[in-house]
């Protein structure tokens, strides 16, 4: 039997004017009203471009061979030649912050994507089917809440090594449950609504309703939570790297740069601590602003 397409008018309309009500401004307009959200998005574009184009922008190589000429440049305070100064080995900190951004941002984005995908799948199944499946999956999320995440990350990195894949995989495995709970709640709420009943009456199978009716309606919550997950992952990775359980050197994220220069606190080289930390702060702040603006823009009540 063929599945009749569900009449478009049965779907809840996102941001479409109905009847005599004044037209609702478009999603872009609603987002643009959020000034901090726009600033955050702009900052993210700049940071992202900086990381992406690091080989073109960076004035020096990130890991130069340590010749006498490079070593002679060591321990220079920030100047026009070395914007963020140089470290103990004469490496340019500005260059390394640009390259470190590649690591931190890649990890943040990959973890957000992976944990959103996993969390959505689990949350959707739990919310749609309910019953024993739901109970089982939710008890697993309970377990993730009580297991101390940072400790598990440290143990896993120690055992499995500090490659990018391991860190992304373990961070994702420890953070999907937040999104799973949100998606589950959404699916449970929408399961009882008329448009789902209509789809079911027209013969749509469960997976089809989940993928084409319910999932598009969770885009808002997913976007918000994925944005916040990027920030959480960047903070998590930086903490891990700072403790020395991050990427294997010479690969350097902002967290591992801080780990290497923590001895500089209280010395003339304290500037080594300022810039990677500021980079993390700015990135996470921008991501959180974007997340907040998305929440307001998607929320039909606002």
């Amino acid at each position, binding site marked *: 039997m063929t599945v009749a397409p569900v009449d478009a008018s049965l779907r809840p309309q996102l941001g479409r004017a109905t009847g005599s009500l004044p037209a609702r401004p478009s999603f872009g307009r609603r987002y643009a009203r959020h000034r901090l959200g726009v600033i955050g998005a702009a900052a993210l574009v700049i940071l992202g471009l900086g990381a992406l184009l690091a080989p073109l922008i960076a004035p020096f190589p990130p890991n130069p061979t340590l010749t006498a000429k490079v070593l002679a440049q060591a321990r220079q305070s920030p100047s026009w030649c070395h914007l963020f100064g140089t470290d103990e080995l004469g490496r340019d900190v500005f260059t390394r912050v640009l390259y470190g951004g590649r690591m931190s941002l890649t990890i943040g984005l990959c973890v957000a994507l992976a944990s959103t995908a996993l969390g959505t799948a689990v949350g959707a199944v739990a919310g749609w089917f309910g019953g024993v499946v739901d109970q089982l999956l939710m*008890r697993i999320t*309970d*377990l993730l*809440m*009580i*297991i*101390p*995440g*940072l*400790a*598990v990350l*440290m*143990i*896993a990195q*120690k*055992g*499995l090594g500090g490659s990018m894949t391991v860190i992304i995989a373990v961070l994702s495995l420890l953070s999907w449950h937040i999104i799973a709970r949100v998606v589950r709640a959404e699916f449970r709420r929408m399961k009882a609504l008329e448009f789902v009943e209509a789809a079911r009456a027209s013969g749509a199978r469960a997976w089809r309703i989940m993928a084409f009716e319910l999932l598009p309606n969770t885009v808002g919550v997913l976007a918000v939570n994925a944005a916040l997950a990027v*920030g959480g992952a960047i*903070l998590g990775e*930086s*903490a891990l790297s*700072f*403790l*020395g*359980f991050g990427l294997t050197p010479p690969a350097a994220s902002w*967290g591992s740069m*801080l780990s290497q220069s*923590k001895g500089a*606190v*209280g010395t003339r080289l*304290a500037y080594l*601590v*300022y810039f990677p*930390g500021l980079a*993390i*702060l700015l990135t*996470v*702040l921008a*991501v*959180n*602003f974007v997340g907040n603006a998305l929440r307001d823009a998607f929320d039909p009540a606002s």
Partner: protein
Amino acid sequence: MVSFVVRRIGWSLVVLLVASGVMFVLVRATTDPLSSVRAASATGGDSDAVASGRLVAAEQRRLGLDRPLVAQYGHWLGAFVRGDWGQSIVSHRSVGREIRAKLWNTVQLIVWGIAFSLAMSVIVGVASASRQYSALDHGLSGLSFVALSMPSFWFALMSIELAVFVPKRALHLDHPLLYSVGLHSATGGGAFDYLRHLVLPVLTLSLPLVASWSRYLRSSMLDVLSAPYIRTARAKGVRRSRVLRHHALQNALIPFTTVSAIGIGGLFGGLIITETIFSWPGMGQLLYNALLTGDTNVLLPWLVVAASFVLACNLVADVMHVVLDPRVRL
């Protein structure tokens, strides 16, 4: 009520049991308890390969590592429940004693941190809710945004730089105003010395808590403040400050207890960072050192203690909610 608490405790024990199983598998999968034996026998050279292989196998049998994983877990669990938490590979002391020695220092940090965070978030939350959309409210919510986006280890490093070293240099002091290492000076020095050691670690630990709790309390205060009974209280002439403190705050604190207890449960991650930076001889530092020295026997008991702490916090949250909110029916 009693049966609710008993049921909740029973359920927590079940969760803890399952969690310990998961953590057992995790630790077994990522660490090799025989690594030191292997390393020692590997240096023997090729001629000893058979002998060293036999040594590893013997050691495997002695420790029961050749048995199925479930049997190993059962054996470990039995010993753990009886109080035998194994022996540290590095210090050769009992892991239970090591953890108990460190636990007290960590408890000090947690108690001061929670007390400070609660006080600060009530002050900040009430101040911003009572003047919604004022410059103060905007300023405080901006600050909490920054605090939530800041890696706490970076805050710790910057606070050491700005509160320990900069004043010491600027004022040519012999001793810094605040200390950044340990709990006490080597020479001793009483309560004031203790306080000077405590300030920065407690600030580092509290920063994310104050930021998120005060936001939560603000919105929960605003919910309560829009309720009709608040208007009634004001209309019959109760002073604004009394309404805020008595009518609004007391009710806003009910959902807040749940949130704060869960936040306290998440404190162990922050403890690892704080204790490592400030050389605070507690649980966090114990784990860090154990991982650096390859002391794998410490890991599992540590994880179980941390998970129990989180579970206990969640339990307290549930019970408090029932006690404080008479509308919750069991």
